[in-house]
């Protein structure tokens, strides 16, 4: 015991934390601060150094049609992917958790897209959407739908990518629901069955409310993912046509690494971080509220 008292606890604690702290600060906190700082300057070019311009970059945001477009796109993309993937995930989880024949195979099938890289998924799906020769064209032809330029039409491209994202993500969210469903004591549904509750009633009054924390968790995850998921754009559309499928993070990449306008990219990043922080705040407030019933 003497040994412990000789090395003070607080020193021990900080020493253990040190390596992680260094890396976290270097690659998370410092960049965040730098991002904010740089957003008030111009981009240094060649021999011209950066110059302080206050809020000019932010004013430029408001007049940047592409920025407004990608923001709206991100919102639509979220709208197209989140409810569908979460809803399907729940359905899958209920099925896979039940007693249907072949459910193990179904679970494999649902979950597999999760372990594939988005780039690979995009490679495969690109051919689905190719007009004239693609799979989708061949599959829909018997229904009289043909000649649709899925990725080349601003009115369809975003939804096509959303469908693909749903395919990729639903299985991932299914896992959380599956875990939650397995955590629901069977007693509860049995008690309800004795009272005469049907499956739907059971689901609506018991399972669904009990899954609420999971749903919130999954929803937040899905929201965050919407801001992170851009890999497929590199393969499929490069954000086109006319920015119809571009998303905020992809625009940041373009601005930073194709136009080398790092200051403006920082400004865009600040917006992205703001959105993520907002999501975090929602989660935090929700958890606060939930705290006194658990």
């Amino acid at each position, binding site marked *: 015991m003497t040994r412990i008292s000789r090395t003070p606890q607080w020193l021990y604690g900080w020493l253990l934390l040190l390596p992680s702290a260094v890396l976290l600060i270097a690659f998370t906190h410092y960049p965040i601060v730098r991002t904010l700082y740089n957003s008030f300057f111009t981009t240094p*070019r*060649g*021999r011209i150094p950066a110059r302080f311009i206050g809020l000019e970059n932010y004013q430029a945001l408001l007049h940047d049609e*592409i920025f407004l477009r990608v923001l709206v796109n991100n919102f639509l993309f979220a709208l197209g992917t989140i409810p569908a993937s979460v809803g399907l995930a729940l359905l899958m989880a209920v099925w896979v958790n039940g007693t249907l024949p072949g459910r193990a195979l179904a679970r494999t099938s649902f979950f597999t897209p999760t372990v594939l890289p988005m780039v690979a998924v995009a490679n495969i799906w*690109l*051919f689905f959407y*190719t*007009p*004239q*020769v693609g799979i989708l064209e061949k599959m829909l*032809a018997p229904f*009289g739908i*043909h*000649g649709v*330029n899925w*990725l*080349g*039409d*601003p009115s369809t491209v975003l939804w096509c990518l959303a469908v693909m994202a749903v395919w990729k993500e639903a299985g991932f969210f299914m896992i959380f629901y599956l875990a939650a469903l397995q955590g629901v004591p069977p007693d509860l549904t049995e008690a309800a069955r004795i009272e005469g509750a049907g499956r739907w009633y059971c689901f609506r009054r018991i399972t669904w409310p009990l899954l609420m924390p999971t749903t919130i968790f999954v929803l937040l995850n899905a929201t965050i993912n919407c801001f992170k998921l851009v890999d497929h754009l590199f393969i499929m*559309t*490069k954000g*086109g*046509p*006319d*920015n*119809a499928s571009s998303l905020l993070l992809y625009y940041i990449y*373009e601005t930073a*690494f*194709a*136009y*080398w*306008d790092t200051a403006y990219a920082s400004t865009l990043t600040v917006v992205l971080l703001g959105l993520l922080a907002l999501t975090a705040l929602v989660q935090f407030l929700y958890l606060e509220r939930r705290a006194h019933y658990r």
Partner: protein
Amino acid sequence: MKSVFRKAALAGVLVLAVALCLPGLSRAKDIELTMYYPVSVGGPITGIIDGMIGQFQAENPGIKVKAVYAGNYDDTRVKALAALKAGEPVQLSVLFSIDVFDLMDEDVVVPFDELVASDADRQWMQSFYPALMQNGMVDGKTYGIPFQRSTIVMYYNKDAFREVGLDPETPPATWDEMVEMGKKLTKRDASGKVERWGVSIPSTGYPYWMFGALAMQNGQELMNDKGDATMFDAPACVEALQFWRDLGAKHQVMAEGTIDWGTLRQKFLEGATAMMWHTTGNLTPVRNGASFEFGVAMLPAAKRRGSPTGGGNFYVFKQATPEERQAALTFIKWMTAPERTAAWSMQTGYVATRPDAYETQTLRQYVQEFPPAAVARDQFQFATAEFSTHETARVKKFLDDALQAVLTGQKEPAQALAEAQKGAERVLKAYR
């Protein structure tokens, strides 16, 4: 089990340590050149380049060249610039011909005029097709030497031409002819589903490039020589864009919406389009993949014929030492010698960059056996510079967006091009 865990952790730490030491291995005494090269990955071209480098090193002891294949043109520019900014040793690169202004603005390239010493060298600089030199020259100085160069040509399906009673040896020479023939070539089934389009001009990837051709054919360049002004909203441009859109919207010989650059070749090979505009760089893959007889033609004319060049030039970077610069020059001269240019052209389908290459025995024979290989050369007399300005990527983006907006029916040509022009002005006025 505990010890397994500990060993695993230990191994992990070791691997990490080794990985941290991986970069920066010792350098030999030879002059080492690092060259960024735009090719997607390995594949035939990597092999060819590596083979050429090997031969060069054998003939020039004391100079080592390392090629870094960094993806497409945009990726490679990004990577090369990043490496330069980070102070990595990079002495030369093959980069997009149109990156010249950006490279100058970043103050990283050195003009070849400063490198050459002898008259022979100066003569070498004059030996390339003038059309290919345009993009490399700024203010009378030469910053880029053409190497992996291409232009747009029209591939067409001769079997399809025969099928609808057109002469397979007479491809369309004007816009009107292209529309007329396109109408004949467009095939629909009973339900109205299009089985084959007449013509396809890709509008993702490099829409500005295709548009450069259309505008030129309509008698209009897109930018000035100094790269600080664009002419997007010129009436001839609006007209050209209107024509492009009309191919789909009015004449219905082309699919509406954007047409994907990457998958277009597949569609052509599957017979889903009778004609396609594409890079000459596609010649060899099309030749290998086509199950029908195909032809290659010059792009049709409106007021004149025209096609922008494209592709990559050699650049030498300022941060190279004088010895490295000379070594780089030696390498570039070697790479662009007529016989190697000829071999390169035959292997890849890219154009030979100098007339005397076409005079070599091998290439002359090749062209005789495979006439399409000469189309690009023949087109050079009508060729112009590819679109290139200061902050090219960004200015290009304004144009690309406008083109796609029009092709997808979001905007009218005049309005879209006026907006693009406004955007370009905003960026470019800083450079005047």
